[in-house]
């Protein structure tokens, strides 16, 4: 490859000239990557090499710029309905990723590369529950996904891949087996890859837990080659500090009981319990300053009884619970 050839230059379509494909490759390089001085020089050389190159770049550039003048482009590209349901999805995703202190990318399904050769159809998946809602969705492949309150799963199924993303909350995945179409669930922190199995993922502000109910699941940490293979009864917790923690056991009765509306905690810090309550409570539950967020509790209760549970905690522990019309505030009771 000569020095002035553009990077990532794909084979041009039959009708288009070589210059057009090269011009697009250059344009996309500058639009999408941090460009080195060497590449800048190579671009200058390429641009100066022929009048055809310059004209081709102008065409590509007109199109790229002109995209922003296409009427209603923001709706065409964002899919109006989904945007209405989740108006702040992109910003939220980015904030969560940055908040987790994560740097670069995720491990990626090897099969995805073949997609470029495949025309659509792709099936777009968007599952959402409201606060307090627990709901099971059935997908086109027969898989069933149960979402906890205030949870979101989105993704895309193609002929070759099944890619899902747990954007918020928690979900139980009962995945139909398809040897030729592995399924991945990306949580931002870890990626879970399966052929067909049952597992549970809970996404929290500072960590993600994966519990396998049946079958075999591969968990990969973001930005690392680290992977763990989990079998039925195995659980793993990933945090920004620990990356993938050790494989541990779990009690399916307690870990998975949320599906029937029951939350169970064993020696869990109050902050985690409050986080889960917030998926179901009609009003936000807030830990005030000085509240013992790290106090560890073992509790089991129905999502319908959050108010009573908090009242009970008020009576039994050194905390004070104040309810108003807009929130439930937990503060230091001493």
């Amino acid at each position, binding site marked *: 490859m000569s020095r002035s050839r553009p990077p*990532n230059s*794909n084979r041009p379509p039959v*009708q288009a000239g070589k210059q*057009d*494909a090269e011009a*697009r490759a250059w*344009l*996309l390089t*500058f*639009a*999408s*990557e*941090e*460009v080195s001085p060497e590449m*800048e020089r190579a*671009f*200058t050389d390429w641009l100066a090499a022929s009048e055809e190159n*310059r004209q081709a770049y*102008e*065409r*590509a*550039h*007109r*199109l*790229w*710029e*002109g*995209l*922003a*003048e*296409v009427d*209603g*482009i*923001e709706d*065409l*590209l*964002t899919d109006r309905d989904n945007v209405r349901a989740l*108006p*702040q999805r*992109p*910003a939220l*995703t980015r904030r969560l*990723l940055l908040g987790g202190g994560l740097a*670069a*990318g*995720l491990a*990626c399904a090897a099969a*995805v*590369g073949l*997609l*470029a050769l495949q*025309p659509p*159809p*792709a099936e*777009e998946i968007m599952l959402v529950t409201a606060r307090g809602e627990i709901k099971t969705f059935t997908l086109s492949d027969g898989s069933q996904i149960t979402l906890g309150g205030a949870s979101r799963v989105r993704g895309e199924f*193609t002929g070759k891949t099944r*890619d899902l*993303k747990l954007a918020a909350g928690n979900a139980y995945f009962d995945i139909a087996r398809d040897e030729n179409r592995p399924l991945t669930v*990306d949580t931002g922190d870890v*990626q879970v890859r399966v052929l067909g199995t049952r597992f549970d993922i809970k996404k929290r502000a500072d960590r993600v837990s994966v519990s396998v109910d049946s079958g075999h699941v591969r968990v990969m940490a973001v930005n690392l080659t680290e992977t763990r293979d989990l079998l039925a009864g195995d659980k793993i917790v990933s945090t920004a500090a620990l990356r993938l923690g050790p494989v541990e056991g779990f009690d399916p009765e307690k870990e998975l009981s949320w599906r029937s509306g029951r939350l169970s905690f064993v020696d869990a810090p109050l902050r985690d319990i409050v986080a889960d309550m917030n998926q179901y409570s009609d009003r936000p539950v807030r830990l005030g300053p000085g509240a013992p967020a790290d106090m560890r509790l073992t509790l089991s209760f129905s999502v319908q009884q959050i108010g009573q549970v908090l009242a009970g905690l008020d009576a039994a522990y050194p905390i004070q619970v104040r309810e108003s019309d807009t929130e439930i505030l937990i503060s230091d009771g001493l």
Partner: protein
Amino acid sequence: MQAKPFCPDNTVLPGPFADGAVVPVQVDAAAVAVERTAFLNHLFREHYGELVGRLRKVFGAGPPDPEDVAQAAFSKLAALTDLGRIRSPRAFLFRTAINIGLNSNDKIRRGRNFVKSQLEGNFFPDVEEISPETVLMGKQDLERVARAIRQLSPKQREILLRSRFRGQTYAEIKQETGWSEADISRQLTKVMALLQDELDN
């Protein structure tokens, strides 16, 4: 001052100033300034809210903040010498705002400025200071592109949105979607080829 100071078809107004070569010109200049301010105010009232709404669909709550970007786009508009030649203020404002938003990503700003410096005064005008007479695509071309975009897969649309409109690098798109950079690059290259074909045929 004349009751009818602005004279659009350049006919000389009747009355005491009719013979003066200088005075009517001054009247017109002042009137043009007044008209200009009125027109800018009109554009602001007409388009600001909608522009912020459109930007919110692209950026969410930000960053960049949709209101900041919208205001910066209006500043660019107000700095133009010839407002009358903007074909569509709505399209101009949106494109300008999107391009301003791209500059909030340090990783690609340098490259954008480099391309700008290479192209400036060369064979077509500067991207940032889009001159109103620059017609990128005609109405029919824009419609063809819209039709072609409807044919793209959801994944291709998502990549196009993130790259062209949110100014994300491949690495950033990978981080948020899990797709590999090679795949993202291939998809985007293909999208551009498809759209160009649509225009050429």
